[in-house]
């Protein structure tokens, strides 16, 4: 095992997130109640996804500058871990929303249509679908160099589209999701008090480092496979 300080830091921060995140004091908000603690988990998934996609696009650019296939492997593996984080963020958001946005007196299936059309959900779905297309595009090209080049260019395109899809458009349109005009109470991530901040920021770092750790394992495995294939 490559012993590194950041892997230990990740474990320490995550244990801190799980204990302090569940036991720490939180503001008493109507409707949200204890679910505000999901901030340390659900929101961190999206932050982690964003950081992993950023690393991925940087590696794609490095590939285009050097045409070294190593960077192509880096770029792909960071992207795929980012997608996993995004999917987890989406699923956890779905669970959270079904208990805070939905009317508990009506069936959740009957309200699905009105909740699922929320701009934030559609934007996030578009962003994830664009990244699914990245994986499909990669696997549809046979030639290794061409595959690397096409997917690096597409990676930059996908990364640019993240911004309108999840940052800009959902903030312009009225949405139930916090951080938008029309949402009750504004964005808890922006207005949270110090007690939550001291857990939230370490949580983001911890989750992201865990993602990076998994990505490095996948990268080393891919490099090993490559070596075997070449010899």
């Amino acid at each position, binding site marked *: *095992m*490559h012993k590194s300080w950041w*892997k230990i830091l990740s*474990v320490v921060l*995550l*244990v801190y997130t*799980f*204990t302090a995140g*569940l*036991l720490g004091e939180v503001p008493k908000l109507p409707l949200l109640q204890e679910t505000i603690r999901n901030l340390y988990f659900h929101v961190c998934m999206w932050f982690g996804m964003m950081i992993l996609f950023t690393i991925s696009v940087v590696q794609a650019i490095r590939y285009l500058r050097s045409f070294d296939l190593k960077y192509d492997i880096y770029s792909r593996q960071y992207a795929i871990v980012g997608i996993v984080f995004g999917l987890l963020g989406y699923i956890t958001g779905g669970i959270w929303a079904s208990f805070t946005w939905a009317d508990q007196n009506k069936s959740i299936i009957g309200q699905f249509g009105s909740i699922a059309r929320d701009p934030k959900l559609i934007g996030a779905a578009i962003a994830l679908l664009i990244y699914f297309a990245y994986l499909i595009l990669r696997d549809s090209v046979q030639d290794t160099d061409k595959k690397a080049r096409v997917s690096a260019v597409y990676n930059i395109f996908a990364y640019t589209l993240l911004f309108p899809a999840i940052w800009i458009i959902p903030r312009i349109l009225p949405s139930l999701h916090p951080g938008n005009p029309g949402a009750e109470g504004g964005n808890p991530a922006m207005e949270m008090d110090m007690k939550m901040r001291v857990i939230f920021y370490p949580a983001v770092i911890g989750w992201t480092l*865990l993602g990076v*750790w*998994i990505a490095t*394992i996948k990268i*080393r*495995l891919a490099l*090993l496979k490559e*070596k*075997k294939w070449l010899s």
Partner: protein
Amino acid sequence: MVIMRNAFKKIAAALLLLFSPALLFAQNNTGMADTMRSNGRIYVVVAVMTTILLGLIFYVSRLDRKISKLEKETK
């Protein structure tokens, strides 16, 4: 011999895990147990979630170690 020892280790670990609830029950009247039953037993949730987290991290670090071994072999 090494395989035998590894298998033994695995069986021992599995047995230890199997009996760990019994270990917890045995300490019914200690201070630890009182903490675990306070505040709507939220500490039980913390214990469960932390166990899952640590289990997953243990798994990832094992993968890491295995790949390190492979890397050494191919060098």
